[in-house]
C-alpha cells in the first residue's frame, strides 16, 4: 500500500469534479424546499438530465447544448410533479417517489441505443500560465466551465435568498403559505417556479455525470446521487453555503474512497462502495440529534399542500 501516491492537489481538484453533480442537485432541491415543497424525485430528474444531456451532447457533439437540453428536460419532468402536487394536490412524498420511478424507466428506455458510447469532451477553460501554479493551479484554474458555474450558482442562490425581495417572498411561501397568500402572493405559481428551477439544476447535475464525470451513459448511473443530494439539504439545514460544504465533504469522501482502492488498500471493494451511504446515514443522525438548530431550520410549511379556499 502506498498512500504517498495520493497527491493532495489532485485530490482536491478531483473532489470538486466529483462533488459538482450533487452540489447542483442539492442546491436546486434546497430552493424547492425553501418554497415549502418536498420533491423526492431528485434521483429521477437527475437521471433524465443525464440521459438527455448525453443524447444531445453525443448527437450534436456540443456538450454545452447537452447541458441546456438536460436542464430543460428535467425542468419539464419537475413541472409534471408540480402539476400533480400543486394543482391536483396529490401527496408530495408519493408523487416524488413516482417521479423517480418514471425517470429511471424513461431514461433506461431512451438511453438504450447509447450504451457504451463515449461522450464528447467538454473543454476546460484556458487560464494560461495561471494553471501551472503549484497546488493552486490544478485546484482553482484547471476545471471545466460547469464547476465554476456551480460555484457561481451557490453564490447567486445565497444572495437571492438572503438579500433580495424575491428571496423574501420565496421564504414567506415556504414558512407560511396562508400568510403569503393573504399578502397577495401567488403561492402556487411561486412554488411551480421553484420546482422548475430545482428540476433544471438536478438536470444539469445529471448531465455532468454522463458528459464529464464518467463520461458515458449507463442505465441507473446516478446510483443514489439524487437521494444523497436530498440528505445534503438536511445536512446543510437549508442554507446555500452549507450545501457547498456538505457536497464537497461528500465528494471528498468519494474521491478518497476511489484513491484508497487505487492505492491498493486491502479492504473489500464492497465495504468501500457502501461507505458513502453509511456516512450519509451517520451525518443525518448527527445533524438531527445535535443540540444545534439543524433540524429546526426546516421551512415550516415543508411538504404541506396549499389549497386556496375562497
Amino acid at each position, binding site marked *: 500500500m502506498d498512500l504517498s501516491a495520493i497527491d493532495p492537489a489532485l485530490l482536491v481538484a478531483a473532489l470538486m469534479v466529483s462533488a459538482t453533480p450533487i452540489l447542483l442537485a442539492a442546491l436546486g432541491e434546497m430552493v424547492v424546499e425553501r418554497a415549502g415543497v418536498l420533491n*423526492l424525485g431528485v434521483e429521477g430528474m437527475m437521471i433524465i438530465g443525464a440521459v438527455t444531456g448525453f443524447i444531445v451532447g453525443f448527437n450534436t457533439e456540443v456538450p454545452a447544448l447537452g447541458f441546456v437540453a438536460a436542464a430543460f428536460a428535467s425542468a419539464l419532468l419537475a413541472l409534471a410533479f408540480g402539476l400533480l402536487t400543486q394543482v391536483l394536490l396529490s*401527496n408530495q412524498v408519493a408523487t416524488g417517489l413516482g417521479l423517480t420511478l418514471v425517470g429511471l424507466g424513461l431514461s433506461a428506455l431512451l438511453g438504450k441505443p447509447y450504451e457504451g458510447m463515449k461522450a464528447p469532451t467538454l473543454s476546460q477553460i484556458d487560464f494560461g500560465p495561471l494553471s501551472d501554479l503549484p497546488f493552486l493551479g490544478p485546484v482553482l484554474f484547471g476545471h471545466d466551465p460547469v464547476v465554476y458555474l456551480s460555484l457561481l450558482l451557490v453564490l447567486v442562490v445565497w444572495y437571492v435568498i438572503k438579500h433580495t425581495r424575491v428571496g423574501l417572498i420565496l421564504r414567506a411561501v415556504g414558512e407560511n403559505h396562508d400568510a403569503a397568500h393573504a399578502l397577495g402572493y401567488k403561492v402556487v405559481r411561486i412554488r411551480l417556479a421553484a420546482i422548475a428551477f430545482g428540476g433544471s439544476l438536478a438536470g444539469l447535475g445529471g448531465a455532468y455525470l454522463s458528459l464529464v464525470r464518467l463520461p458515458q451513459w449507463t442505465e441507473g448511473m446516478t446510483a443514489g446521487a439524487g437521494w444523497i443530494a436530498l440528505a445534503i439539504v438536511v445536512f446543510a439545514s437549508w442554507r446555500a453555503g452549507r450545501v457547498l460544504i456538505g457536497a464537497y465533504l461528500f465528494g471528498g469522501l468519494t474521491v478518497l474512497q476511489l484513491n484508497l482502492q487505487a492505492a491498493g488498500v486491502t479492504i473489500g471493494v464492497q465495504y468501500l462502495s457502501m461507505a458513502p451511504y453509511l456516512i450519509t446515514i451517520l451525518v443525518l443522525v448527527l445533524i438531527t*440529534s445535535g443540540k444545534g438548530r439543524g433540524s429546526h431550520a426546516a421551512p415550516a410549511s415543508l411538504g404541506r399542500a396549499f389549497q386556496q379556499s*375562497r
Partner: protein
Amino acid sequence: MVRLEKRLNPNRTVAMLTPLLAVLLTMLAGGIMFALLGNDPFEAIRVIFWDPLFAEPFASYSRPQLLVKAGPLILIAIGLSIGFRAGIWNIGAEGQYIMGAICGAAAGLAFYPSESPLIFPLMVLFGGLGGWAWAMIPAVLKVRFGTNEILVSLMLVYVAENILAMVSTGVLRNPEGMGFPGSRNLGHWDAASNPELIEGTGMHWGVALSLVVVIATYVMMTRHIRGFHVRLAGEAPRAARFAGVNPTRIVIFCLGLAGALAGLAGLFEVSGPAGQITIDFASGYGFTAIIVAFLGRLHPVGILLAGLLMALTYIGGELAQLLLGVPAAAIQLFQGMLLFFLLAMDVFTNYRVRFGTTKVTA
C-alpha cells in the same frame, strides 16, 4: 372558472374507480409509447395483458408465474401500506427483502446437508428476523434521533446490495460451485426448499402466507385497536397523542412489521423461485411494491388485486420483450406511469370539482 372544493370525507365510490381509470389512462399513454417505439400499440397491450393468461402456448407457463410474482409483491406491499397509513415512509423494502433472503438462507446453509424438518421453519424465522432487523435501523434512528426514515431506509438499500454482492462471492458461496459466485441451490436440497404446493399453480408457502396476511391485516385495520391507532396516528397525529397513542411504538411497529414481511418475501423467493443467493438476486420487488400499495389504495383487498395486476405487467412485459422486442425498461416506465396517473386521479377522491365563481353567503 374551475375550482376544487374539499370533500368532508373521501368519496369511496370514486376511490374504488380511480385505480381502474388510472389503468385505462396508462394503457392509453403506454399505447402511444409503444407506437413511438415502432410497435403496434394494440398488439403490445394485448401481449402484456391478455396473452400471458389466455393465449396458448404461453399461458400454461405464465399462469403459475402470476402467483409466483404476485406473492412477494403483495407481502411487501401490505407491510408498506400499514406504515403509509400511519405516515411512516419506509421506501427501503428492497433492502429488507435482500437482508431477509441472506439471513434466512445463511441460517439454513449453516446446517447443510442435514435433512431435519426443522430447517425450513428456522430459515423462515431468520428470514423474518433479518428483514425486521434491517428495518429497525431507520426505526430506532427515527424514534431516538428524529432522523428522516425515508432517506435512511433508502440508503440502506444500497448497503444491502453491497452486502449481497459480498456474501454471494464470499461466505455463502457454494464450495462446490467451481468458483462461480452464488450460494448452493436451495431448490435441490429438500429440507430447505420452498416447493410448489399444488402442481401447476405457482402456489408456494410465500403465496399462502401472503393470502393469510391480507386477511389478518384486514381484520387488524378494521376490527382491532392497533389498526385504529395506526390510522389515527396517520390521519390526526395530534388527536392520536391526546388519545394516548404512543408515536414511538407506532413507528417501531409499522417499520418492524414491514421489514419482517419484506424479509419473509425475500426468504420465500430465495428458497423457491430464485433458488440461490446470487449477485443479481435483487429484482426490484421492494420498489414495485410501493406502486402496488398505492394502486391498492392502501387497503388489503385492493393490494391483493393490485399485486396480481402488477405481476401481470411483469409477465406480460417479459413476453413483449420476447415476442415484440419491447425493451425491459418500457415496462418499468409503464409501472411508473401507472402510479403517476393514479396520484393525479386521486384529486377526485378528495375534492369536488366546481365550475363557476363562488357566491358569498352570509
